[in-house]
């Protein structure tokens, strides 16, 4: 039994550097991993380890100050080689040097998970709870949150994103086990959104939703908004199918199996491919020998994630949550483009019909990281709505957030959105506003004020 939703609004971008002929993922062993607390919004990290400590897979690295039971655990076994702190001693990352001699993975009791409390306890202690997100606020859920429904995304429509059917391959039994755990912690349903054109198999126990649309149709927020929107006072859980499979693996193996499949993509990659590695792997290792030969002649932008909602980590950075994609594009700050605003070059990527590139449906583009203009007040109207398939007045919500008007944010539906839902709008915005940052700050502000 499955539902179907059709979404007309969205963004279709054809970028150079897709994985055209997928092969089995190449194993890329790495010497170290790093976990960045910024990947776990809502958590105020308190360290559980010190430099020099030996950790194994599943050992807690840090916990949340407010809810100490929410922990982030190590994806690798080895020695904590560095605890990097920034201004005002803010924790920036925990780096672990991998040591094959290190102790075996931490065992978790996975039998007798028959009720809400035991399921939550397992997820919390294994660190997988920290991989979940809740709406409202798009943060790591509180351990005692009353969860109305769970929304799992089993596809990614972002540019160059990995194909979940390939990445998940034979993980059906893991996903089934994962769904069984999630059903313990909610009284509602576990919805799984999948690509209607390239669907994953039905998962027993879950409500499958076939989604037909383009980015951001694959987002959990869009799925929820079109199936059962979040109201004030309700909490839903969101996660992707890869984390769902991790939960299942934990259930069946009794310990964490932290390997991930990552799509290495982008116009600057010679031969885009899938690699199998660890969460938090160094990007340099993943890209070693895969950058295009002439890449040294220009500045590059190395993105963990996709080009619309990812994080620029630099070549010395580490793979960041949600650990499934690395994209490399030209940075573009080293070119001098004469009168770019008048350009009719076919290589210019745009949703606007004033660029010939708009009509070249089969062309693959290689955009750089320039914002292609100057920041302005919101001038054009209706731009955001065209790429936001939710019943949200995007422009008005953004204005309410900027003016920090709590009542208006609430009434315009801020509880239904996450920053990533505005990624496509941020791309098309001719006023070049940082919409995702605005939404993130608005959500954090609201959470602080209402606590």
């Amino acid at each position: 039994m499955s539902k179907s939703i059709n979404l007309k609004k969205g963004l279709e971008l054809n970028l150079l550097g897709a994985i055209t002929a997928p092969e089995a993922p190449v194993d890329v062993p790495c010497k170290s991993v790093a976990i960045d607390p910024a990947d776990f919004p809502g958590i105020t990290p308190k360290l559980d380890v010190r430099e020099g400590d030996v950790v194994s897979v599943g050992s807690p690295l840090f916990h949340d100050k407010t809810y100490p039971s929410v922990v982030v655990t190590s994806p690798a076994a080895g020695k904590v080689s560095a605890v990097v702190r920034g201004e005002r001693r803010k924790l920036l990352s925990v780096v672990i040097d991998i040591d094959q001699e290190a102790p075996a993975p931490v065992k978790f009791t996975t039998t007798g998970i028959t009720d809400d409390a035991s399921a939550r306890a397992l997820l919390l202690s294994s660190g997988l709870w920290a991989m979940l997100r809740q709406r409202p606020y798009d943060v790591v859920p509180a351990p005692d949150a009353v969860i109305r429904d769970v929304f799992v995304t089993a596809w990614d429509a972002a540019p160059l994103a990995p194909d979940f059917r390939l990445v998940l391959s034979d993980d059906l039994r893991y996903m089934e086990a994962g769904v069984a755990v999630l059903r313990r912690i909610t009284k509602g349903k576990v919805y799984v959104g999948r690509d209607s054109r390239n669907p994953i198999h039905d998962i027993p126990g879950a409500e499958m939703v076939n989604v037909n649309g383009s980015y951001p149709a694959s987002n959990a927020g869009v799925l929820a908004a079109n199936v059962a929107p979040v109201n004030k006072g309700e909490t839903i859980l969101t996660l992707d199918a890869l984390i769902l499979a991790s939960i299942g693996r934990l259930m069946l193996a009794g310990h964490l199996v932290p390997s991930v499949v990552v799509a290495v993509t982008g116009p600057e990659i010679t031969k885009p491919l899938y690699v199998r590695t660890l969460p938090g792997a160094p990007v340099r290792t993943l890209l070693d020998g895969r950058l295009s030969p002439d890449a040294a002649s220009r500045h590059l932008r190395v993105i963990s994630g996709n080009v619309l909602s990812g994080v620029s980590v630099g070549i010395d950075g580490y793979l960041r949550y949600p650990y499934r994609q690395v994209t490399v594009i030209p940075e573009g700050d080293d070119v001098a483009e004469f009168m770019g605003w008048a350009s009719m070059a076919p290589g210019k990527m745009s949703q606007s019909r004033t660029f010939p590139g708009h009509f070249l449906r089969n062309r693959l583009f290689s955009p750089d990281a320039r914002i292609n203009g100057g920041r302005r007040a919101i001038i054009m109207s209706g731009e955001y709505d065209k790429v936001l398939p939710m019943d949200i007045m995007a422009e008005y919500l953004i204005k309410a957030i900027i003016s920090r008007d709590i009542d208006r944010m609430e009434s315009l539906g801020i509880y239904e959105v996450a920053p990533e839902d505005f990624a496509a709008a941020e791309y098309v915005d001719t006023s070049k506003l940082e919409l995702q940052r605005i939404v993130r700050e608005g959500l954090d502000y609201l959470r602080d004020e209402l606590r």
Partner: protein
Amino acid sequence: MKSLRNYLDKIKPNFEPGGKFHAFQSVFDGFETFLFTPNTTAGRVGAQIHDSMDSKRTMIIVVLALLPCLLFGMYNTAYQHWLAAGNATFPFFTMMLYGFLAVLPRIVVAYVVGLGIEFVVAQWRREEIQEGFLVTGILIPLICPIETPLWMIAVATAFSVIFVKEVFGGTGYNIFNVALVTRAFLFFAYPSQMSGDKVFVPTQPILGIGGTVPDGFTGATPLGQIAVASPQAGEALSIVGVNGQPISTWDAFLGLIPGSFGETSTLFILIGAVILLLCGIASWKIVVSVFAGGLCMASVAHLCATPLYPASMLTPLDQICLGGFAFAAVYMATDPVTAARTEIGKYIYGFLVGVIAILIRVYNNGYPEGAMLAVLLMNAFAPLIDWCVVRANIRRRQRRLTA
């Protein structure tokens, strides 16, 4: 281009704080970003790539879409002058030169005054120069009678740029359309110079081009003639051109009639509309609904035609082709900043602009043309329309909560 880039990089430090010309930083920045796409790259978090479209290109497309009207305006200005002077031959290039010379000072004055204020304010606020005035500066000469004294254009432009735009925060924050307020300022501050039968047709030769127009001619616009007409019952309206010949609907559509510089030709306005709509710059919802509203109101007025209100005797098609209606529908009502911003709101806003334009034109003998006032009035009401549309969204959400 490389050498230009290097030159800019060389002189740039002079314009930075502490440099010799630091008071011109915004101006330098404006020219630099005009010449070279800024190399600002996306932040660390958030969208890593951005659409190539920006507000510079948006504004330039609007200016391009105004060029057909500008070119036709040059021809028509000369054509009216030639007719009034009683010439029998119409040399095309000489006439275009005459029209060009007639409008050039007006464009220069509008840009110098408006952009000058923009530059000063941008520097004062330490912001980038914004592109909004590129469009406003060309709109102003297009919607004024050709004989408007230059100093009036300067005063009106300064007034509206300062008090309609800058005090609200600049481009994107204004409530009223800046170009239309310029026109309204002229209309209400200098009524005698802004209407009547002498301002729409130039009477003097320029740099020896053109002839001298005899004193007795009447250069009133068709709507101006209708406003003062007193037809008897059953008698048809008569509107005549500067040569005394009657004006047909076809003449009005082509635009070879007296009127404000760029807004006489419905044909060329439609060419501009096609450019704007194909490029996706203007909202087709607004354009279509302004015409729909205008036709509806004009039909109603025409059905109840009475000599008491002579303009009601015009056919709906005449109403669309005469005056500034089409120009307002395509270039004024579609200004995204001052129009309704919600998609449903755009239909309502546009329709009401059309209705009110004809309403004022027909039933208010004091104002022969209502398009300008209709757009300004709806500018004031656009936030209210949007408020209602947004309210509906909020209510949907509240209902879901209580259900």
